[in-house]
């Protein structure tokens, strides 16, 4: 196996990882600040992708589609926060799970009601299509490279937002002590709506960006949602830094495992069998990773120690 292939696969893992980070960041913020498990986060991802596909389809502009995705997902997030989620902050995790599970059903079938059963079309913008040559003779799709950069930029922006701005201070205070920020005169319900909309917008952005190279269809959010949960659990729930590290770990494990495990198995099996068992183990890889991390550190890599 050539080093070019290995580097390309690492880039693929990174790209997958940063997109997972966009999902996971919102999820972990919402959990950290509001203590809420939001299963419907995957639906916001789907909303973003559908909004982008619909607007890009009408206007022909991918960029406008992206804006629409951000706006639609943030709006959907703010609405469900105000109508439903707000009533669940003090509820048991169990109630949160059920209520947001119900939201998944409503969003998924509702979207199918509006857009029909067939996948929508969303393509990458002309300017970003095709491969570029990287140093070392690696051909890599420009769009995926852009995704990596966008993901990194969003991660940096989030870090700045949380470490360096007033809102960030309020968010961090909220993670520590709800009464405390109320005492400081911050309007909690506004802050919560804002954080929820921010998380939703990130999910919507991920949905639109990824939708361009995948299939925009009903139910696209659930597999990603589960992966995002794996990410934040590995990273430690509530920790943005943990989400970032966790996302890269999951992205790399999943991508590299799928490629290298079958190769590894070929050393002591015939090709077909090695392919099958290798890819079988690889598909369980990230869950095994998560199990191992939790057994080692029951609150994740960067989670608050109990």
């Amino acid at each position, binding site marked *: *196996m050539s080093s070019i292939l290995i580097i390309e696969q690492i880039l*693929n893992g990174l790209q997958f990882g940063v997109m997972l980070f966009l999902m996971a960041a919102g999820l972990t913020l919402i959990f950290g600040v509001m203590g809420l498990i939001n299963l419907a986060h995957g639906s916001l991802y789907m909303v973003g992708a559908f909004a982008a596909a619909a607007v890009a389809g009408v206007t022909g502009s991918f960029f406008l589609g992206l804006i629409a995705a951000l706006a639609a997902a943030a709006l959907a997030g703010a609405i469900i926060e105000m109508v439903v989620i707000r009533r669940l902050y003090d509820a048991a995790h169990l109630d949160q799970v059920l209520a947001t599970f119900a939201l998944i059903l409503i969003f*998924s079938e509702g979207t199918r009601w509006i857009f029909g059963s067939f996948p929508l*079309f969303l*393509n990458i913008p002309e300017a970003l299509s095709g491969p570029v040559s990287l140093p070392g003779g690696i051909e890599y799709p420009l769009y995926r490279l852009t995704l990596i950069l966008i993901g990194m930029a969003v991660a940096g922006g989030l870090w700045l937002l949380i470490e360096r701005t007033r809102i960030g201070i309020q968010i961090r205070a909220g993670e520590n002590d709800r009464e405390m920020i109320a005492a400081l005169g911050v309007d909690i319900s506004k802050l919560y709506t804002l954080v929820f909309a921010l998380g939703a917008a990130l999910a919507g952005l991920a949905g639109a960006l990824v939708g361009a190279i995948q*299939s925009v269809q009903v*139910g696209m959010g659930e597999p990603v949602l589960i992966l995002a949960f794996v990410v934040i659990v590995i990273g430690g729930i509530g920790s943005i830094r943990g989400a970032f590290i966790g996302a890269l770990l999951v992205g790399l494990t999943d991508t590299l495992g799928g490629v290298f495990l079958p190769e590894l198995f070929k050393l002591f099996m015939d*090709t077909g069998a090695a*392919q099958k068992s290798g890819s079988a183990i690889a598909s369980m890889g990230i869950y095994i990773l998560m199990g191992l991390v939790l057994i080692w550190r029951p609150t994740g890599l960067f989670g608050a120690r109990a």
Partner: protein
Amino acid sequence: MKKLLLAAAASALCATGALAEVKVGMITTLSGGGAGLGIDVRDGFMLAIAQSGRDDIEVVIEDDQRKPDIAVQLSDKMIQSERVDVMTGIIWSNLAMAVVPAAVNQNVFYLSPNAGPSPLAGKGCHQNYFNVAWQNDNLHEAAGAYANEAGYEKTFIMAPNYPAGTDALTGYKRYFKGDLAGEVYTKLGQTDYAAEIAQIRASDADSVFFFLPGGMGISFLKQYADSGIDLPVVGPAFSFDQGILQAVGDAALGVVNTSQWNKDIDNPTNEAFVESFQAEYGRLPSLYASQGFDTANLLLSALEKADPSDADAFREALRAADFDSTRGDFAFGPNHHPVQTIYAREVIKEGDVFTNKIIGAALEGHSDAYAADCKM
């Protein structure tokens, strides 16, 4: 589970008097992922029933949500409660495996409009089971045959890691005479194929064969087109069918895929079908719609000759396959699976709409590899 009772052509006035003499149970996927396929099969089937003008056929339609346990439950309902004579509709092989063996053993006829799992074609074949679409391997075998014809010598092949995926690669390899540049099983439901595409790039393949149904295929094709690799791609029709093509867009243009049907197959039945389907539903018919349409016409042709209550006569009538198929010549082999021509077709753009055009026959009078195992 939308129930649709249709006494075709029965006017409101005589509705009470129209006694349904034949009851057909259709279990298909109408909600959730993959609903598009079930909807097409249903629409094609109902179109043929409506065109027949018969008012004594009652079709009970239920949605299986693509869940095997729901499908089994519905099948119980069809047989126990509705007491249907004939069943049809199932899209997915795993659902078919859950429903069909039990149903045909309870003396119900089953006409498959889409799934053709290999056990039902070989050792597990049954006199009451008829497949009107294809045995699962067929289109992949045709892809292998086409690859030979196109002069490919080293193909990179991939499919999801589940039984139909294994069957697909086996089917391709059965006919393909060249070497394999790589053989990859992906995760079922996988949406990102960057890793596989990198492997393709790193291999010395001269062509790519893939079987990735539904959203998986859309994702792969978009990402493949963007990767800058220009190796030719072949695949079965599933990733290039009417319903799905618009979502793939330019990425699919020029790709060769194999199918037993296309809208430009030149025969009067097909022409009328394409036209009336478009008139009725406002969209181009898909492969699945054609299969639903053919299934209904097979049923109608048998009903002309015999009543399902006379099982032996009805079975003979079905076996004769005395109907005009949208795909031209159609006959059943000894295991009640089609013997038919499978075409290679190419994705083109007609105005704003992506569609396919036939470029030649990949396999003619093709049966399947399991017929010999069938003891009927």
